[in-house]
Protein backbone atom coordinates (compact mmCIF):
# COMPACT_ATOMS: atom_id res chain seq x y z
CA UNK A 1 0.00 0.00 0.00
CA UNK A 2 2.69 2.40 1.07
CA UNK A 3 4.69 1.68 -2.05
CA UNK A 4 1.80 2.50 -4.30
CA UNK A 5 1.28 5.75 -2.46
CA UNK A 6 4.90 6.69 -2.78
CA UNK A 7 5.02 5.87 -6.44
CA UNK A 8 1.91 7.92 -6.91
CA UNK A 9 3.51 10.83 -5.16
CA UNK A 10 6.52 10.55 -7.42
CA UNK A 11 4.57 10.51 -10.61
CA UNK A 12 1.94 13.12 -9.86
CA UNK A 13 4.10 15.59 -8.03
CA UNK A 14 7.34 15.89 -9.86
CA UNK A 15 9.33 18.62 -8.30
CA UNK A 16 10.51 21.36 -10.52
CA UNK A 17 13.12 23.65 -9.13
CA UNK A 18 13.18 27.16 -10.34
CA UNK A 19 16.05 29.44 -9.75
CA UNK A 20 14.97 32.91 -9.17
CA UNK A 21 17.30 35.77 -8.57
CA UNK A 22 15.47 37.41 -5.80
CA UNK A 23 15.77 37.35 -2.12
CA UNK A 24 12.74 38.55 -0.26
CA UNK A 25 13.43 36.02 2.40
CA UNK A 26 12.17 36.66 5.87
CA UNK A 27 14.17 33.91 7.48
CA UNK A 28 11.04 31.90 8.12
CA UNK A 29 10.59 28.21 7.43
CA UNK A 30 12.66 26.28 5.02
CA UNK A 31 11.23 26.57 1.53
CA UNK A 32 13.75 28.97 0.04
CA UNK A 33 17.02 27.14 -0.45
CA UNK A 34 20.03 29.41 -0.65
CA UNK A 35 22.53 28.36 -3.23
CA UNK A 36 26.18 29.38 -3.46
CA UNK A 37 25.49 31.92 -6.16
CA UNK A 38 23.37 33.82 -3.67
CA UNK A 39 20.24 33.01 -5.61
CA UNK A 40 17.19 31.50 -4.01
CA UNK A 41 15.74 28.25 -5.16
CA UNK A 42 12.04 28.07 -4.66
CA UNK A 43 10.51 24.67 -4.94
CA UNK A 44 7.49 24.54 -7.19
CA UNK A 45 5.72 21.23 -7.38
CA UNK A 46 3.58 20.17 -10.27
CA UNK A 47 0.26 18.41 -10.11
CA UNK A 48 -2.59 17.53 -12.43
CA UNK A 49 -6.33 17.53 -12.48
CA UNK A 50 -6.46 13.80 -12.56
CA UNK A 51 -8.09 12.02 -9.63
CA UNK A 52 -6.48 8.59 -9.40
CA UNK A 53 -7.84 5.46 -7.71
CA UNK A 54 -5.32 6.11 -4.92
CA UNK A 55 -6.81 9.58 -4.44
CA UNK A 56 -10.28 8.08 -4.34
CA UNK A 57 -9.22 5.58 -1.72
CA UNK A 58 -7.78 8.42 0.32
CA UNK A 59 -11.08 10.36 0.00
CA UNK A 60 -13.00 7.32 1.16
CA UNK A 61 -10.72 6.93 4.18
CA UNK A 62 -11.08 10.63 4.97
CA UNK A 63 -14.87 10.33 4.78
CA UNK A 64 -14.81 7.30 7.03
CA UNK A 65 -12.69 9.19 9.52
CA UNK A 66 -9.79 6.75 9.18
CA UNK A 67 -6.37 8.24 9.99
CA UNK A 68 -7.85 11.68 10.30
CA UNK A 69 -4.56 13.46 10.56
CA UNK A 70 -3.06 11.95 7.47
CA UNK A 71 -5.09 13.29 4.58
CA UNK A 72 -2.62 16.03 3.91
CA UNK A 73 -0.99 17.66 0.93
CA UNK A 74 2.37 19.29 1.32
CA UNK A 75 1.89 23.07 1.59
CA UNK A 76 3.52 25.22 -1.07
CA UNK A 77 3.11 26.25 -4.67
CA UNK A 78 1.91 23.82 -7.35
CA UNK A 79 1.56 24.18 -11.08
CA UNK A 80 -1.30 22.72 -13.10
CA UNK A 81 -0.79 22.33 -16.84
CA UNK A 82 1.65 24.89 -18.25
CA UNK A 83 1.03 28.14 -16.44
CA UNK A 84 2.65 31.35 -17.61
CA UNK A 85 3.49 34.48 -15.69
CA UNK A 86 -0.01 35.83 -16.09
CA UNK A 87 -1.85 32.63 -15.15
CA UNK A 88 -4.29 32.72 -12.23
CA UNK A 89 -3.33 31.65 -8.70
CA UNK A 90 -5.83 29.69 -6.61
CA UNK A 91 -5.50 29.22 -2.87
CA UNK A 92 -6.37 25.94 -1.16
CA UNK A 93 -6.06 24.07 2.14
CA UNK A 94 -3.66 21.17 2.62
CA UNK A 95 -6.50 18.71 3.17
CA UNK A 96 -6.65 16.18 0.34
CA UNK A 97 -10.43 16.54 -0.15
CA UNK A 98 -10.14 20.33 -0.54
CA UNK A 99 -7.05 20.20 -2.76
CA UNK A 100 -8.38 17.42 -4.97
CA UNK A 101 -11.76 19.12 -5.43
CA UNK A 102 -9.88 22.17 -6.68
CA UNK A 103 -7.52 20.15 -8.90
CA UNK A 104 -10.30 18.26 -10.60
CA UNK A 105 -12.37 21.43 -11.11
CA UNK A 106 -9.41 23.17 -12.78
CA UNK A 107 -8.53 20.20 -14.95
CA UNK A 108 -8.25 22.09 -18.22
CA UNK A 109 -6.89 25.35 -16.86
CA UNK A 110 -3.22 26.32 -16.74
CA UNK A 111 -2.75 27.82 -13.32
CA UNK A 112 -0.97 27.85 -9.96
CA UNK A 113 -2.32 26.47 -6.71
CA UNK A 114 -1.03 27.93 -3.47
CA UNK A 115 -1.58 25.35 -0.74
CA UNK A 116 -1.69 26.79 2.77
CA UNK A 117 -0.71 24.80 5.82
CA UNK A 118 -4.06 24.25 7.51
CA UNK A 119 -2.91 21.16 9.41
CA UNK A 120 -4.92 18.86 7.18
CA UNK A 121 -8.21 20.63 7.87
CA UNK A 122 -10.68 21.76 5.20
CA UNK A 123 -10.97 25.41 4.16
CA UNK A 124 -14.04 26.38 6.15
CA UNK A 125 -13.13 24.71 9.41
CA UNK A 126 -9.57 25.96 9.16
CA UNK A 127 -10.77 29.49 8.38
CA UNK A 128 -12.94 29.39 11.50
CA UNK A 129 -9.86 28.57 13.56
CA UNK A 130 -7.72 31.11 11.73
CA UNK A 131 -5.35 28.47 10.27
CA UNK A 132 -6.63 29.31 6.80
CA UNK A 133 -6.05 32.96 7.48
CA UNK A 134 -4.43 36.27 6.73
CA UNK A 135 -1.10 35.45 8.39
CA UNK A 136 -0.69 32.09 6.69
CA UNK A 137 -1.49 33.52 3.24
CA UNK A 138 0.97 36.37 3.66
CA UNK A 139 3.64 34.00 4.93
CA UNK A 140 3.05 31.45 2.16
CA UNK A 141 3.19 34.12 -0.57
CA UNK A 142 6.62 35.09 0.71
CA UNK A 143 7.94 31.62 1.33
CA UNK A 144 7.20 30.40 -2.19
CA UNK A 145 8.39 33.63 -3.80
CA UNK A 146 5.05 34.14 -5.54
CA UNK A 147 5.90 37.70 -6.55
CA UNK A 148 8.59 36.38 -8.87
CA UNK A 149 6.58 33.52 -10.26
CA UNK A 150 3.65 35.58 -11.52
CA UNK A 151 3.51 39.08 -12.90
CA UNK A 152 0.03 39.90 -11.61
CA UNK A 153 -1.07 40.45 -8.02
CA UNK A 154 -4.37 38.57 -7.72
CA UNK A 155 -5.21 35.54 -5.58
CA UNK A 156 -8.44 33.62 -6.00
CA UNK A 157 -9.46 32.45 -2.54
CA UNK A 158 -12.45 30.17 -1.86
CA UNK A 159 -15.30 32.21 -0.41
CA UNK A 160 -15.54 30.09 2.72
CA UNK A 161 -11.97 31.15 3.53
CA UNK A 162 -13.29 34.67 4.19
CA UNK A 163 -13.99 33.75 7.81
CA UNK A 164 -10.22 33.73 8.36
CA UNK A 165 -8.93 35.93 5.57
CA UNK A 166 -9.06 39.70 5.83
CA UNK A 167 -8.71 40.72 2.19
CA UNK A 168 -7.57 44.26 2.93
CA UNK A 169 -4.86 43.12 5.30
CA UNK A 170 -3.56 40.61 2.78
CA UNK A 171 -3.30 43.36 0.20
CA UNK A 172 -1.60 45.78 2.58
CA UNK A 173 0.90 43.23 3.79
CA UNK A 174 1.65 41.26 0.62
CA UNK A 175 0.54 43.40 -2.28
CA UNK A 176 -1.82 40.69 -3.49
CA UNK A 177 -5.47 41.44 -4.04
CA UNK A 178 -7.78 38.73 -2.72
CA UNK A 179 -10.65 37.82 -4.97
CA UNK A 180 -13.21 35.63 -3.21
CA UNK A 181 -14.27 32.94 -5.65
CA UNK A 182 -17.34 30.73 -5.41
CA UNK A 183 -18.10 28.48 -2.41
CA UNK A 184 -17.67 25.28 -4.42
CA UNK A 185 -14.60 24.56 -6.51
CA UNK A 186 -16.82 22.94 -9.14
CA UNK A 187 -18.24 26.38 -9.99
CA UNK A 188 -14.79 27.82 -10.76
CA UNK A 189 -14.74 27.25 -14.55
CA UNK A 190 -18.05 29.09 -14.80
CA UNK A 191 -16.84 31.80 -12.43
CA UNK A 192 -13.64 32.37 -14.41
CA UNK A 193 -15.61 33.44 -17.48
CA UNK A 194 -16.77 36.65 -15.84
CA UNK A 195 -15.08 36.70 -12.42
CA UNK A 196 -18.52 37.21 -10.95
CA UNK A 197 -20.26 34.67 -8.79
CA UNK A 198 -24.02 34.30 -8.90
CA UNK A 199 -25.88 34.37 -5.54
CA UNK A 200 -26.30 30.64 -6.03
CA UNK A 201 -22.52 30.16 -6.24
CA UNK A 202 -22.12 32.31 -3.12
CA UNK A 203 -24.39 30.16 -0.92
CA UNK A 204 -23.54 27.01 0.96
CA UNK A 205 -25.84 24.09 0.55
CA UNK A 206 -26.45 21.10 2.72
CA UNK A 207 -27.72 18.54 0.28
CA UNK A 208 -28.81 14.99 0.95
CA UNK A 209 -25.43 13.85 -0.35
CA UNK A 210 -23.58 16.28 1.94
CA UNK A 211 -25.51 14.94 4.90
CA UNK A 212 -25.09 11.29 4.02
CA UNK A 213 -21.31 11.52 3.68
CA UNK A 214 -21.16 12.89 7.23
CA UNK A 215 -22.85 9.84 8.73
CA UNK A 216 -19.78 7.53 9.02
CA UNK A 217 -17.69 10.05 10.95
CA UNK A 218 -20.56 10.89 13.30
CA UNK A 219 -21.11 7.19 13.85
CA UNK A 220 -17.48 6.60 14.59
CA UNK A 221 -17.55 9.22 17.35
CA UNK A 222 -20.30 7.49 19.28
CA UNK A 223 -19.76 3.89 18.34
CA UNK A 224 -17.87 2.77 21.44
CA UNK A 225 -20.12 4.20 24.19
CA UNK A 226 -23.21 2.95 22.36
CA UNK A 227 -21.77 -0.53 21.91
CA UNK A 228 -20.80 -0.68 25.57
CA UNK A 229 -24.32 0.37 26.58
CA UNK A 230 -25.97 -2.25 24.42
CA UNK A 231 -23.59 -5.01 25.51
CA UNK A 232 -24.32 -4.21 29.16
CA UNK A 233 -28.05 -4.30 28.48
CA UNK A 234 -27.76 -7.58 26.62
CA UNK A 235 -25.77 -9.04 29.51
CA UNK A 236 -28.23 -8.02 32.21
CA UNK A 237 -30.80 -9.93 30.28
CA UNK A 238 -32.71 -7.85 27.81
CA UNK A 239 -31.79 -8.23 24.15
CA UNK A 240 -34.72 -6.02 23.29
CA UNK A 241 -33.27 -3.21 25.40
CA UNK A 242 -29.92 -3.64 23.65
CA UNK A 243 -31.69 -3.44 20.29
CA UNK A 244 -33.49 -0.33 21.52
CA UNK A 245 -30.20 1.47 22.17
CA UNK A 246 -29.01 0.59 18.70
CA UNK A 247 -32.29 1.74 17.16
CA UNK A 248 -32.17 5.03 19.05
CA UNK A 249 -28.61 5.52 17.79
CA UNK A 250 -29.72 4.68 14.26
CA UNK A 251 -32.52 7.26 14.53
CA UNK A 252 -30.13 9.96 15.73
CA UNK A 253 -27.17 9.16 13.52
CA UNK A 254 -28.78 7.98 10.28
CA UNK A 255 -32.48 8.84 10.03
CA UNK A 256 -32.03 12.30 11.51
CA UNK A 257 -29.36 13.59 9.09
CA UNK A 258 -31.14 12.09 6.09
CA UNK A 259 -34.53 13.54 6.98
CA UNK A 260 -33.17 16.77 8.51
CA UNK A 261 -34.90 19.35 6.29
CA UNK A 262 -38.23 17.55 6.38
CA UNK A 263 -38.58 16.98 10.12
CA UNK A 264 -41.16 19.59 11.13
CA UNK A 265 -39.30 21.45 13.92
CA UNK A 266 -36.43 23.94 13.78
CA UNK A 267 -34.17 22.79 16.61
CA UNK A 268 -31.80 19.89 16.23
CA UNK A 269 -32.69 18.42 19.60
CA UNK A 270 -36.42 18.36 18.92
CA UNK A 271 -35.84 16.88 15.48
CA UNK A 272 -33.75 14.10 17.03
CA UNK A 273 -36.32 13.68 19.76
CA UNK A 274 -39.03 13.08 17.18
CA UNK A 275 -36.91 10.53 15.30
CA UNK A 276 -36.07 8.66 18.51
CA UNK A 277 -39.72 8.91 19.52
CA UNK A 278 -40.82 7.06 16.39
CA UNK A 279 -38.46 4.20 17.17
CA UNK A 280 -39.51 4.26 20.82
CA UNK A 281 -43.19 3.86 19.95
CA UNK A 282 -42.35 0.66 18.09
CA UNK A 283 -40.40 -0.74 21.03
CA UNK A 284 -43.02 0.36 23.55
CA UNK A 285 -45.83 -1.31 21.61
CA UNK A 286 -43.74 -4.39 21.10
CA UNK A 287 -42.89 -4.83 24.76
CA UNK A 288 -46.48 -4.14 25.73
CA UNK A 289 -47.96 -6.71 23.39
CA UNK A 290 -45.28 -9.38 23.29
CA UNK A 291 -44.62 -9.80 27.00
CA UNK A 292 -48.10 -11.20 27.46
CA UNK A 293 -47.15 -13.71 30.12
CA UNK A 294 -45.70 -10.95 32.32
CA UNK A 295 -47.40 -8.81 34.89
CA UNK A 296 -49.26 -5.83 33.38
CA UNK A 297 -47.23 -3.37 35.44
CA UNK A 298 -43.99 -4.84 34.16
CA UNK A 299 -45.15 -4.54 30.56
CA UNK A 300 -46.24 -0.98 31.14
CA UNK A 301 -42.97 -0.21 32.90
CA UNK A 302 -40.83 -1.41 30.01
CA UNK A 303 -42.93 0.46 27.48
CA UNK A 304 -42.51 3.62 29.53
CA UNK A 305 -38.76 3.07 29.88
CA UNK A 306 -38.36 2.91 26.10
CA UNK A 307 -40.45 6.04 25.65
CA UNK A 308 -38.34 7.87 28.24
CA UNK A 309 -34.83 6.90 27.19
CA UNK A 310 -34.78 6.36 23.43
CA UNK A 311 -35.84 9.87 22.31
CA UNK A 312 -33.19 11.39 24.61
CA UNK A 313 -30.43 9.34 23.02
CA UNK A 314 -31.32 10.41 19.50
CA UNK A 315 -31.95 14.00 20.57
CA UNK A 316 -28.45 14.12 22.07
CA UNK A 317 -26.90 12.62 18.95
CA UNK A 318 -28.82 15.04 16.76
CA UNK A 319 -27.66 18.00 18.86
CA UNK A 320 -24.09 16.84 18.33
CA UNK A 321 -24.63 17.02 14.60
CA UNK A 322 -24.73 20.84 14.80
CA UNK A 323 -20.98 21.12 14.30
CA UNK A 324 -21.15 19.30 11.01
CA UNK A 325 -23.92 21.40 9.52
CA UNK A 326 -23.46 24.49 7.45
CA UNK A 327 -25.87 26.77 9.23
CA UNK A 328 -26.00 26.40 13.03
CA UNK A 329 -25.05 29.62 14.83
CA UNK A 330 -23.20 29.62 18.14
CA UNK A 331 -25.98 31.54 19.81
CA UNK A 332 -28.58 29.03 18.66
CA UNK A 333 -26.54 25.99 19.62
CA UNK A 334 -25.86 27.44 23.07
CA UNK A 335 -29.54 28.10 23.52
CA UNK A 336 -30.29 24.52 22.53
CA UNK A 337 -27.76 23.15 25.01
CA UNK A 338 -29.22 25.21 27.85
CA UNK A 339 -32.82 24.42 26.95
CA UNK A 340 -32.64 20.73 26.21
CA UNK A 341 -29.61 19.23 27.91
CA UNK A 342 -31.12 19.39 31.44
CA UNK A 343 -34.33 17.81 30.14
CA UNK A 344 -32.41 15.08 28.33
CA UNK A 345 -30.34 14.35 31.43
CA UNK A 346 -33.29 14.21 33.83
CA UNK A 347 -35.66 12.23 31.65
CA UNK A 348 -33.08 9.68 30.59
CA UNK A 349 -31.90 9.44 34.22
CA UNK A 350 -35.41 8.58 35.34
CA UNK A 351 -35.69 6.10 32.47
CA UNK A 352 -32.43 4.40 33.37
CA UNK A 353 -33.47 4.07 37.03
CA UNK A 354 -36.72 2.54 35.80
CA UNK A 355 -34.79 0.04 33.68
CA UNK A 356 -32.60 -0.89 36.65
CA UNK A 357 -35.68 -1.42 38.82
CA UNK A 358 -37.43 -3.47 36.13
CA UNK A 359 -34.35 -5.59 35.51
CA UNK A 360 -33.84 -6.31 39.21
CA UNK A 361 -37.49 -7.24 39.53
CA UNK A 362 -36.90 -9.75 36.78
CA UNK A 363 -33.72 -11.08 38.38
CA UNK A 364 -35.24 -11.37 41.84
CA UNK A 365 -38.08 -13.32 40.34
CA UNK A 366 -40.86 -10.91 39.61
CA UNK A 367 -43.75 -9.52 41.52
Amino acid at each position, binding site marked *: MKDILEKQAETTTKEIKKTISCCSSSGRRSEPIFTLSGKTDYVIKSTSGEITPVNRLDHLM*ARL*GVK*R*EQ*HRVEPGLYTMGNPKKDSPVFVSAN*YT*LSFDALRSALKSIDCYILVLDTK*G*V*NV*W*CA*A*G*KGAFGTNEIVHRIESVGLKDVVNHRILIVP*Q*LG*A*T*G*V*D*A*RQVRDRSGFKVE*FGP*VRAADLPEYLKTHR*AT*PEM*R*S*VRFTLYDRIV*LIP*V*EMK*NFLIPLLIASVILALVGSYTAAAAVISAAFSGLVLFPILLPWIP*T*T*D*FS*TKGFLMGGLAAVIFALDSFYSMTNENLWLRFGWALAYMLVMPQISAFLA*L*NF*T*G*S*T*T*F*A*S*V*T*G*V*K*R*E*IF*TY*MPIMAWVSGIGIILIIVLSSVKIIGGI
Partner: protein
Amino acid sequence: MFNSYVSNTLEYDPELCINCGMCSTVCPHRVFSPDGKKAQLVNPKACMECGACQLNCPTKAIKVDNGVGCASAMMLAAVKGKKEVTCGCDSSC
Protein backbone atom coordinates in the same frame (compact mmCIF):
# COMPACT_ATOMS: atom_id res chain seq x y z
CA MET B 1 -39.56 28.40 22.57
CA PHE B 2 -38.82 25.58 20.18
CA ASN B 3 -36.80 27.69 17.79
CA SER B 4 -33.38 28.43 19.21
CA TYR B 5 -32.27 30.09 16.00
CA VAL B 6 -34.62 33.09 15.78
CA SER B 7 -32.08 35.57 17.04
CA ASN B 8 -28.31 35.86 17.08
CA THR B 9 -25.55 38.35 17.76
CA LEU B 10 -25.40 39.95 14.31
CA GLU B 11 -25.55 43.76 14.42
CA TYR B 12 -25.44 46.04 11.42
CA ASP B 13 -25.14 49.79 11.43
CA PRO B 14 -26.17 51.06 7.98
CA GLU B 15 -24.91 54.55 8.92
CA LEU B 16 -21.33 53.30 8.62
CA CYS B 17 -21.77 51.38 5.39
CA ILE B 18 -19.86 52.66 2.38
CA ASN B 19 -21.47 50.12 0.06
CA CYS B 20 -18.31 48.25 -0.84
CA GLY B 21 -20.30 45.04 -1.31
CA MET B 22 -17.88 42.86 0.61
CA CYS B 23 -20.48 41.51 3.07
CA SER B 24 -22.72 40.26 0.26
CA THR B 25 -19.69 38.65 -1.34
CA VAL B 26 -18.42 36.72 1.67
CA CYS B 27 -21.69 35.69 3.35
CA PRO B 28 -22.56 32.07 2.59
CA HIS B 29 -26.20 32.51 3.65
CA ARG B 30 -27.22 35.61 1.71
CA VAL B 31 -27.83 37.55 4.91
CA PHE B 32 -26.83 40.79 3.19
CA SER B 33 -27.91 41.95 -0.19
CA PRO B 34 -26.29 44.67 -2.30
CA ASP B 35 -28.40 47.69 -2.97
CA GLY B 36 -27.95 51.02 -4.77
CA LYS B 37 -26.73 52.93 -1.71
CA LYS B 38 -26.13 50.63 1.21
CA ALA B 39 -25.92 46.95 1.99
CA GLN B 40 -29.33 45.67 3.07
CA LEU B 41 -29.71 43.25 5.94
CA VAL B 42 -32.23 41.00 4.25
CA ASN B 43 -32.17 37.76 6.21
CA PRO B 44 -30.63 38.15 9.67
CA LYS B 45 -32.13 34.88 10.94
CA ALA B 46 -30.05 32.89 8.46
CA CYS B 47 -26.78 34.17 9.96
CA MET B 48 -24.62 31.37 11.33
CA GLU B 49 -22.19 33.77 13.04
CA CYS B 50 -19.18 32.80 10.96
CA GLY B 51 -17.75 36.29 11.19
CA ALA B 52 -16.63 36.61 7.57
CA CYS B 53 -18.58 39.84 7.03
CA GLN B 54 -17.26 41.44 10.20
CA LEU B 55 -13.66 40.60 9.32
CA ASN B 56 -13.97 41.96 5.80
CA CYS B 57 -16.10 45.06 6.37
CA PRO B 58 -13.78 48.06 5.93
CA THR B 59 -15.80 50.39 8.15
CA LYS B 60 -16.71 48.06 11.01
CA ALA B 61 -20.38 48.49 10.18
CA ILE B 62 -21.01 44.86 11.12
CA LYS B 63 -20.55 43.23 14.51
CA VAL B 64 -21.06 39.60 15.33
CA ASP B 65 -19.81 37.26 18.07
CA ASN B 66 -18.34 34.65 15.82
CA GLY B 67 -17.51 31.16 16.85
CA VAL B 68 -17.97 27.51 16.16
CA GLY B 69 -21.61 26.41 16.25
CA CYS B 70 -20.70 22.94 17.36
CA ALA B 71 -22.47 21.40 20.36
CA SER B 72 -19.85 18.70 20.91
CA ALA B 73 -17.06 21.29 21.02
CA MET B 74 -19.02 23.48 23.45
CA MET B 75 -19.85 20.61 25.77
CA LEU B 76 -16.28 19.40 25.68
CA ALA B 77 -15.05 22.89 26.52
CA ALA B 78 -17.58 23.09 29.36
CA VAL B 79 -16.52 19.72 30.75
CA LYS B 80 -12.85 20.61 30.58
CA GLY B 81 -13.57 24.01 32.08
CA LYS B 82 -12.15 25.90 29.14
CA LYS B 83 -13.46 29.30 28.21
CA GLU B 84 -12.55 29.26 24.59
CA VAL B 85 -14.38 26.88 22.33
CA THR B 86 -12.34 25.55 19.47
CA CYS B 87 -13.58 23.09 16.99
CA GLY B 88 -11.97 19.80 17.88
CA CYS B 89 -13.49 18.04 14.96
CA ASP B 90 -10.40 18.02 12.74
CA SER B 91 -11.29 17.34 9.20
CA SER B 92 -14.77 16.02 9.70
CA CYS B 93 -16.74 19.25 9.74
